[in-house]
């Protein structure tokens, strides 16, 4: 019993001190942001990695998310709710929840693993030490461009996902679910609020930060060799996914129960 309690205590202390170090790293990254113009090429390169590298994944995921949402919605609604609300259900689900969260989980995991593995390998092969010796701050040169690339590009990818998912929902509804095009589009326009789209984008902006921080933090703190890189990549992805889900709940309360509720 004592051993279990000690292990729990150790895990809690390690978790809290890790969170503290993560916040210090975030602070250091934010303090280096004034170098963003100088590092514009590196930021653009990282943005390109996210945008172009994730494109096939985003397209496939989004089409099927929209289509599955349409199928499920029709199944739930058929006896009770008029089909003119189908477009509304799909657009609200995609804008508020599915777009931001799925992109954060799918594209985010890919990105987080990429950051953690790349920086982790640099750490264990002394490349980060070499950078320090060359009087180049790895936080400025490596972490800051990756952080802002993720924060800026995850919302862009999410907007792209929203559009394709709705298109996927439309195609599935019209071609396989016997819903007319006019009814679907009428539903899309009904009850549309800018706050739905804006709320989703604010979420994805925060998720971008969470994903980047998880990958960068665990990557830069990798210990050991190949096994260490594998471990830190896995921890970064799991940490990122869990943080996104917890953050989603907290943001849902703040945005849709407090901020947009009052406007």
């Amino acid at each position, binding site marked *: 019993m004592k051993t279990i309690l000690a292990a729990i205590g150790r895990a809690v202390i390690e978790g809290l001190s890790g969170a503290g170090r993560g916040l210090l790293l975030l602070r250091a990254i934010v303090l280096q942001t004034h170098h963003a113009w100088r590092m514009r090429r590196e930021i653009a390169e990282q943005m390109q990695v996210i945008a172009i590298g994730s494109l096939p994944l985003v397209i496939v995921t989004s089409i099927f998310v929209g289509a599955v949402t349409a199928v499920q919605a029709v199944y739930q609604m058929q006896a009770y709710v008029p089909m003119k609300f189908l477009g509304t259900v799909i657009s609200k689900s995609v804008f508020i929840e599915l777009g931001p969260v799925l992109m954060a989980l799918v594209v985010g995991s890919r990105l987080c693993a990429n950051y953690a593995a790349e920086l982790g390998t*640099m750490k264990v092969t*002394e490349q980060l030490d*070499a950078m320090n010796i060359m009087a180049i701050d790895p936080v400025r040169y490596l972490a800051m461009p990756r952080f802002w690339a993720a924060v800026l590009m995850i919302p862009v990818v999410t907007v792209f996902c929203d559009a394709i998912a709705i298109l996927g929902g439309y195609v599935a509804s019209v071609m396989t679910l016997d819903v007319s095009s006019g009814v679907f589009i009428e539903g899309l326009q009904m009850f549309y609020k800018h706050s739905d789209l804006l709320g989703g984008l604010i979420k994805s902006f925060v998720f971008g930060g969470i994903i980047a921080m998880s990958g960068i933090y665990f990557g830069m703190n990798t210990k050991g060799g190949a096994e260490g890189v594998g471990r830190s990549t896995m921890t970064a992805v799991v940490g990122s996914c869990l943080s996104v889900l917890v953050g989603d709940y907290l943001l849902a309360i703040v945005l849709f129960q407090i901020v947009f509720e009052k406007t």
Partner: protein
Amino acid sequence: MQQTWDIPPPPDQRAPDPATFNGIVVEGVSKSFGPKKVLDGTDLLIHKGETLVIIGRSGEGKSVLLKHIVRLLEPDAGRIWAEGHEVSALEHGPLMDLRKRFGFLFQGAALFDSMSICKNIGLMLEEHTDWPRRRIRERACECLRQVGLEGAEDKLPSELSGGMKKRAGLARAIVMEPQYILYDEPTTGLDPITSDAINDLIIQLQKELGVTSIVVTHDMPSAFKIADRMAMLSRGRIVFTGTVDEVRTTTHPMVRQFIEGRSHGPLGAF
């Protein structure tokens, strides 16, 4: 019964005032990793312009000592001085300024594998000078010529052999014409001919650029060839310092066992 040996104080333990000493002073540095004490009150002087070779068995903390000098590691106790600056107490800005005067050749070269060799070598110039790209490339090519790697500038590190990587790492270390170059096992894993070429480069750099070199190695032929002075690290302390001739003729049991490569003696076998 295993015989124990008194560890005599190194001759340069009577250090001058570190704040005025023109070189590097390591003063009572201790470092532990978990329960393992790697450095235990290490003292060492490195004079300006000399090539000091630090020898010792694997795992004795030679690389750890080297990393302390440029503060890649923080000591648990003790201080390090470089040209009158206490390295272990410098703020971020002055530390970065000091590091610009150092070159470091890592054991595995530590080249940035996503960058071309030219970019690897020119990165420091890109970051710390306002030179145009063409001039940076010219300087990178010049450094590559110095290490016998002309034509490799557009290659990626993964396209180079181990010896070529080491030489590219050396080109990167000298690009800013540093006053100090720290070499972490520069010849380990290389064939004898490439090892000798690296040794010649180290000697040539010292003669041509007048740099102070600190070389960590357990490759004795290399150590004898390049050293002005040698220091032996054992059990976390410098147990012997002397010139190459003094090392050759010493009766110090640890040094004798090490340079003769015997498994029996005060250093033990494992």
